[in-house]
């Protein structure tokens, strides 16, 4: 996918919990906080596994974000998907 399109896509998903798979096969889960023309910044979270339409997390959080959180280069993104969550 072209870099501009990924920028727009990330921007549209701002404030949503997403799973981003990078081209090296790694998965990153978090809430999109900020996007610039190079990177998307996630507030990391390890919750939200797609299970019957609900998001469920297992085993806590792998890493914690500070400031704009984890930056992922737009060019490195293979796929982006919304992570569903359930709240009372």
């Amino acid at each position, binding site marked *: 996918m072209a870099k501009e399109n990924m920028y727009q896509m990330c921007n*549209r*998903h701002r*404030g*949503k*919990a997403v799973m981003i798979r990078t081209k090296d096969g790694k998965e990153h889960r978090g*809430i999109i*906080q900020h996007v610039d023309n190079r990177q998307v910044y996630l*507030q990391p*979270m*390890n*919750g*939200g596994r*797609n*299970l019957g*339409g*609900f*998001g*469920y*997390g*297992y085993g*806590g*959080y792998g890493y*914690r974000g*500070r400031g704009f959180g984890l930056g992922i280069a737009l060019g490195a993104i293979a796929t982006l*998907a*919304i992570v*569903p*969550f*359930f*709240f*009372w």
Partner: protein
Amino acid sequence: MEKTYLDCLAAFGIGGAHPGGLQLTKKLLANERFDENMVVLDAGCGTGQTAAYLANEFDCQVLAVDLNPLMVEKATERLVNLQKDICIEVADVQSLSYEEGSIDVILSESVISFTNPTISIPEMTRVLKNNGKLFAIEMVLEQPLSADGRKEITEFYGMDQIWSVNEWMRAFLAAGLTIQSIEVPELETDNDDIETATDFSLSESIDETFHDILSRHVVLTENYKDQLGVRIFKCTK
């Protein structure tokens, strides 16, 4: 002060923090027509997602209250941009400042469950007009829980009770309401729909405790998925 599940929802700024989210709210209101003479109260409005939807979709006057000041702050941010007739304030649904018989419709989206329903239901009933409606999306006990399980859930969520459908019915009837319908909602989420995906209005820095609370919530809900269910109660005064 110890941080609670509701504080966690506020810190993450979770929009539509109730079963089914905004998608279910839309479905619930699909056949409703609220005109400019009607007053609709979003009781426990959270970040104001439903209040914003009401104001955009209908010409009615929208009232929104939440007990959590951070939620009201985030809701206000969302709602000022709409430039609609919305009145939002910090208030307890167990003790509302509205006059008796002044509201046409009240929405409680997983809110009464977090209060003392024997106080909040009569209070909501008090402010409803005659023939006014209460729509409540609430947690119900589907199967008996062990004492330990009940304690774990109520302590974690800061609830006083987990009620069966019958217990809910008794409380609505005791407050003088008529129950029109009780539905089991469809809670499938559409993963591709950005608009209805859970919306997070994050605070600038989120305490580590809130990550732990979110994580624990997810595990608890999974562990007790057979015992805990959801109903939509539609009542009239």
